[in-house]
């Protein structure tokens, strides 16, 4: 390796993992890099724009306070509205660049696998989130909010996000960057009660303390806890805090509240019933059973319950999808890799790496991806120093020509900055951080020059 060799690197995906990988590359003083960011959507930032709840604006500060700096860096280019696997293939990227880092996240979700799941009124939290956060592929999702009760299945942070959006006062959401179509639907919503179903007990819930406490700050919302009032002796500190919070919230419970959130533990859905759409959810009560790895697993009892509802939202995890041409571990829903080096049956596919949710699975918060990207890059640098990286075959200008030829509607950095400016300007007039444009055509028009 010559010390002044310019390393040309493609980063696929502009969520936290891709942006942290970019940060680590740019900040490494021993490297001289050019980074091209590829993004399926016209808009960058992955789940920061498309996942993080609209009423969490402080978390999105990470864009302007950190990611923007690297996005606008002189050694970085942006190819938005370009999907790897569609407009350009992994084997091509492998030749065009010294190294390729896949940070494509998890584009699908886990199904419950129960009868009736295909009925209208059964949606995933992933789709609902994409709809309220303005993913152009989900702008026309049919979210039926006409029944007074909605059921959210799962006990993670995403379940709390969607329960909060379903019950928060619309006047509060109007100050956020939630999409206009979601605001309209929520204004007209008949939902008065959201039941959050946990298949295990109150002490096994996956949500975090700050997110649980926030449920207690919702105006006009009262909290009810059902199904498990155990106060087990040996829980850890974080769990103890959650139990304490739920105890306080349920002690303040009042019938007078406008809306309710019911935490119902030890319950699994078994069937969605209804003629043309979901009308009822059949659930079974569970008990907990220790398993060999030391954890407690849910085990169904014979006891059944019926919950009347018009909307069942599964929130039981995201799931990675294969990229054509890359080895995939179907059981885990991740690209096959060893410590971030993509591997097939023959061993490492040299020069190809993964980071973020497509490497670890759909777990962890924003900062978890920083360490994850760091660890992947350590492998990349080892490979570079050992002379295992084949130099890029195309110059950067040649890559740009290829991209424009394959995707005439590619959105480059100035295009996103124009769209970003248009969204913020529209937001300013309404006292909101931004108003999101949610149709791809509209986004492309605003990104185009002139």
């Amino acid at each position, binding site marked *: 390796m010559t010390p002044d060799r310019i390393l040309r690197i493609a980063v696929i995906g502009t969520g936290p993992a891709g942006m942290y990988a970019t940060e680590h590359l740019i900040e490494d003083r021993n490297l001289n890099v050019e980074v091209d960011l590829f993004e399926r959507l016209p808009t960058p930032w992955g789940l920061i724009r498309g996942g993080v709840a609209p009423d969490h604006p*402080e*978390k999105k500060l*990470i864009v302007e*306070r*950190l990611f923007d700096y690297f996005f606008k860096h002189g050694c970085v280019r942006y190819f938005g509205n370009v999907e790897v696997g569609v407009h350009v293939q992994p084997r091509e990227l492998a030749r065009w660049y010294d190294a390729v880092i896949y940070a494509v996240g998890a584009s699908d979700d886990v199904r419950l696998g129960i009868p009736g799941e295909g009925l209208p009124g059964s949606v995933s939290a992933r789709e609902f989130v994409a709809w309220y956060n303005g993913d152009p592929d989900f702008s026309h999702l049919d979210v039926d909010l006409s029944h007074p009760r909605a059921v959210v299945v799962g006990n993670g942070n995403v379940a709390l996000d969607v329960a909060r959006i379903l019950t928060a006062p619309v006047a509060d959401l109007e100050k956020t960057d939630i999409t206009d179509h979601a605001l309209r639907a929520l204004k007209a919503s008949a939902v008065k009660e959201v039941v959050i179903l946990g298949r295990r007990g109150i002490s096994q819930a996956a949500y975090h303390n*700050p997110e649980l406490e926030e449920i207690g700050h919702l105006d006009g919302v009262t909290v009810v806890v059902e199904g498990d009032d155990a106060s087990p002796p040996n829980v*850890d500190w974080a769990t103890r*805090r959650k139990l304490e919070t739920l105890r306080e919230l349920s002690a303040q419970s009042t019938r007078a509240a406008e809306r309710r959130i019911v935490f119902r533990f030890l319950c699994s859905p078994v069937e969605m019933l209804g003629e043309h759409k979901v009308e009822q959810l059949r659930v079974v009560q569970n008990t907990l059973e220790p398993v060999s790895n030391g954890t407690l697993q849910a085990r169904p009892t014979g006891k059944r319950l019926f919950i009347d509802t018009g909307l069942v939202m599964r929130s039981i995890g995201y799931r990675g999808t294969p990229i054509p041409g890359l080895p995939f571990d179907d059981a885990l829903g991740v690209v096959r890799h060893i410590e971030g080096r993509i591997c097939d049956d023959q061993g490492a596919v040299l020069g190809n790496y993964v980071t973020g949710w497509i490497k670890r699975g759909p777990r962890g918060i924003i900062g*978890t991806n920083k*360490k994850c990207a760091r660890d992947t890059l350590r492998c990349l640098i080892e490979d570079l120093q050992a002379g295992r990286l084949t130099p890029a075959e195309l110059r950067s200008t040649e890559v740009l020509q290829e991209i424009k030829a394959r995707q005439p509607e590619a959105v480059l950095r100035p295009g996103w900055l124009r769209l970003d400016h248009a969204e913020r300007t529209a937001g300013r007039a309404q006292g909101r951080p931004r108003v999101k444009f949610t149709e791809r055509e509209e986004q492309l028009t605003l990104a185009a020059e002139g």
Partner: protein
Amino acid sequence: MAYVITAACVADYSCVEICPVDCISPGPDETGFEEAEQMYIDPRRCIDCAACVEACPVLAIFEDDCLPATMRHYAEINREYFGERSA
């Protein structure tokens, strides 16, 4: 007096990297990092230099007597984390 990390924390350990007395946990190479809900500042070791405040990309760090009303209990939570860890 000490600085306190609040609910907005996204665990990106920028503060850990800048803290001159290494009093923020769990850093990326400590056990518990992957599961951590947030980072915490050890009030007994913090020297009030405020370096972490500007480093935090989501502005989650406050001086303990300037905590926003809904975050006051985080002073105790930061302290408790270290108590629990050594227990």
